[in-house]
């Protein structure tokens, strides 16, 4: 760092932002105050580049109890039960210390959930790595997966769904998005608000140390750079402690059950500064914080370090003074450390004091939490997009030897079996897992200690597709949501809520802002059409290696409700003697498909538009077929096209097929939206065809499930064993 550089710039604030701070305070901020603004006004905490776009997402619904803006979205699912859901990225920490970066990502998302009063019952992950051939990408891949496994398993929350993608575009900047779902008796819902003058602010959990100072402002809100100087500047990544978090979960839920807590908030990015200013600002009160009261890991921390440290596994609880004894009892039982660090006061000031009561900082709490600048950054439509080619048929490569290309596609690391990933995750804890990872949606019982009894079940799916989104961010986003919703439908679940994580490149690049804006519009369009509220999200910007931005990568997680979970859903496996049908339109558009890009490096063309009314009808049909138990196997067609769907179905069932009715090879590789494969027994066929007709969903009979070969008319005949072998081969 050069001496000439003014402090605010070193902390990541622009000159305009520094001027704004001065005008808010009516004076120059001191070092501590500037540090507090720098973390709270960081891109990561303030969403300053994305805020004006995110407002376009629909977030209302009769069942939405808590929408975006709180730690997690919460919906009412009836029977006295509410479900909390949240997704977050931990991309940059995972790039430099894969194990701990991913582990602390899991720790953070869990705190977002139990801070709402919900018991976490399901974790999920969306992972994007460079090519498995690259040693660096391998190191990141292995570290991230063991980090999620190491933390998630030890903290005792099962990891039940996810996706694993490989593309050299993520070589230097992997994406690690983690999702968590929690359940709570509706009346336990608490919000992160400080109220009641005289109430105490109590810091619970781990000691505060010098780790992760400025993580949000320097690490998460700027590009990763590879030169030595910035390696020195990089704040250390934190080490996660799942055992501390486990005790913290139990202690916090017990505190909430005992009615001891007025408000509670986790300490994530921006640490104590964020937790104190947000709870005070939301509650419309002021807060006095005594930094000398914070229990420290090492002595000699500066007040600014205490205020912005991102040490893990900490929570801030607001309690009435007479509840302190009860809090002490519960914390002692769970061996959770605590210290009273502050008090709720009248007014709106956040005041930080030192050991002798001297005032070290004093600023309007809301100015930290809510007054960060909002940028309407420049947007530019890329030239290639204006010139994109809608007529692709002539330019797309033709399919050569179908059997050979089929096997090649199934052998790609992105297509291959992911059980090597999810078998490292505990996916059965709590005895809720009716359908674990490996199928379309994860299906779980709605059950946890202290939760009212119900027959209802949840279905969850996490999806992203950067190939589609690169070609057309708006339509790509719609297709990603459609796929996610169709995954839920295949489990017989009605979609109830969606959260999204928007992973993009540098927002100072106008084309990246165009991708972001288009993505939001795409999400808004389909969510409005499906009446699917977006109850939360996260934005991760500055994802780039060198100067190359990552492809637009929105990731969505959807949660659906199954009204009576008394039977296992059909699953994807083919059943001997059943008949295969295709639901949905003929679509042979291979643009943006895995086949076109990964096998033929053909990146042109345009995605097929999705008709939302037709899609809704399809989803409704699928849900009815599953609920009425008319299908014995079911799988949607998405990533990897019909080839992948058919292969996965055959492998899962251990049964081959002999089908016809495929119009051309391209139809097999197309990832065109809104198509589902179903297997039905002869006695159900009439009802299925009738129901499809009633909803005007095209239905086509393909052929029979039998034997140990995959046979398609005169086009192809390969052995099931060869497909299974190449699909399960470790990449």
């Amino acid at each position, binding site marked *: 760092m050069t001496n000439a550089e003014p402090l605010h710039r070193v902390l990541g604030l622009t000159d305009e932002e520094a001027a704004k701070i001065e005008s808010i305070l009516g004076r120059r901020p001191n070092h501590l105050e500037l540090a507090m603004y720098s973390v709270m006004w960081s891109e990561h905490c303030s969403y300053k580049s994305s805020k004006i776009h995110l407002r376009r997402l629909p977030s209302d619904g009769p069942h939405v109890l808590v929408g975006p803006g709180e730690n997690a979205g919460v919906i009412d699912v009836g029977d006295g039960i509410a479900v909390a859901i949240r997704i977050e990225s931990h991309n940059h920490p995972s790039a*430099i*210390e894969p194990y*701990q970066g991913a582990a602390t990502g899991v720790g953070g998302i869990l705190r977002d959930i139990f801070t709402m009063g919900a018991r976490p019952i399901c974790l999920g992950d969306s992972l994007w790595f460079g090519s498995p051939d690259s040693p660096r990408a391998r190191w990141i891949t292995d570290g991230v997966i063991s980090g999620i496994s190491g933390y998630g398993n030890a903290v005792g929350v099962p990891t039940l769904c996810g996706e694993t993608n490989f593309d050299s575009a993520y070589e230097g900047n992997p994406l690690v998005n983690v999702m968590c779902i929690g359940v709570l008796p509706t009346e336990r819902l608490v919000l992160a608000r400080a109220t009641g003058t005289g109430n105490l602010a109590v810091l619970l959990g*781990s*000691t505060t*140390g*010098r*780790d992760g100072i400025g993580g949000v402002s320097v690490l998460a809100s700027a590009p990763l750079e590879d030169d030595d100087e910035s390696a020195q500047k*990089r704040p*250390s*990544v*934190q*080490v*996660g*402690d799942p*055992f*501390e978090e486990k005790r913290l979960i139990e202690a916090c839920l017990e505190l909430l059950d005992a009615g001891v807590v007025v408000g509670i908030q986790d300490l994530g990015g921006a640490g104590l500064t964020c937790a104190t200013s947000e709870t005070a600002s939301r509650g419309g009160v002021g807060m006095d914080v005594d930094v000398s009261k914070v229990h420290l*890991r*090492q002595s000699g921390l500066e007040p600014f370090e205490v205020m912005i440290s991102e*040490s*893990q596994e900490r929570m801030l609880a607001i309690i009435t003074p007479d509840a302190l004894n009860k809090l002490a009892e519960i914390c002692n039982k769970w*061996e959770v450390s605590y210290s009273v660090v502050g008090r709720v006061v009248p007014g709106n000031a956040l005041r930080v004091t030192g050991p002798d009561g001297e005032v070290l900082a004093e600023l309007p709490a809301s100015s930290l939490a809510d007054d960060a600048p909002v940028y309407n950054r420049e947007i530019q439509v890329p030239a290639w997009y204006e010139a994109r080619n809608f007529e692709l048929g002539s330019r797309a490569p033709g399919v050569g030897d179908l059997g050979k290309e089929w096997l090649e596609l199934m052998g790609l690391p992105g297509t291959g079996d992911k059980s090597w990933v999810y078998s490292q995750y505990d996916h059965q804890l709590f005895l809720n897992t009716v359908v674990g990872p490996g199928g379309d949606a994860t299906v779980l019982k709605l059950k946890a200690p202290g939760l009212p009894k119900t027959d209802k079940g949840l279905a969850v799916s996490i999806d992203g597709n950067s190939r589609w989104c690169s070609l057309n961010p708006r339509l790509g986003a719609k297709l990603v949501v459609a796929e996610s919703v169709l995954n839920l439908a295949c489990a017989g679940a009605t979609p109830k809520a969606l959260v999204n994580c928007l992973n993009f490149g540098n927002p100072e690049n106008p084309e990246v802002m165009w991708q972001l804006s288009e993505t939001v519009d795409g999400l808004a369009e389909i969510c409005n059409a499906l009446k699917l509220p977006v109850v939360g999200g996260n934005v991760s910007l500055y994802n780039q290696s060198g100067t190359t931005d990552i492809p637009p990568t929105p990731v969505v997680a959807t949660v659906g409700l199954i009204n009576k979970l008394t039977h296992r859903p059909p699953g994807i496996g083919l059943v001997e003697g059943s008949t295969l049908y295709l639901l949905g339109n003929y679509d042979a558009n291979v643009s943006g498909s895995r086949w076109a890009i990964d096998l033929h490096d053909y990146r042109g063309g345009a995605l097929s538009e999705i008709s939302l009314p037709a899609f809704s009808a399809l989803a409704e049909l699928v849900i009815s077929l599953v609920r009425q138990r008319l299908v014995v196997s079911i799988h949607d067609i998405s990533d990897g096209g019909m080839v992948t769907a058919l292969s996965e179905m055959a492998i899962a069932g251990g049964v081959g097929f002999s089908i016809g009715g495929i119009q051309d090879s391209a139809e097999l590789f197309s990832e065109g939206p809104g198509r589902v494969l179903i297997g039905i027994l002869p006695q159900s066929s009439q009802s299925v065809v009738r129901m499809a007709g009633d909803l005007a969903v095209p239905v086509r009979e393909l052929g029979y499930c039998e034997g140990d070969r995959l046979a398609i008319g005169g086009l192809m005949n390969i052995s099931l064993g060869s497909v299974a072998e190449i699909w399960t081969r470790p990449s």
Partner: protein
Amino acid sequence: MKFKVLVEVDLKAAIADPAGATIERALPALGFENISQVRVGKAIRFSLDAANSEEARQIVQLVCDRLLANPVIEDTSIVVEPVQASD
């Protein structure tokens, strides 16, 4: 020449060490009151063939940087000793 190598990999001082902290919390209950600052690191031992001590040290440093430790959170210390023929 043959060398015996010991690499100790420890978390940097500023980084939390959950294993160390947990052991430290457990000790008083076992009757050990006077133990503090517990840190748990790795001790990695191996044999190495190299032309001389200088080369051996260089190789070990490289192995540390590339595989055994992540300098973002860990420090390493290295001991390289020639193996006596009689060993």
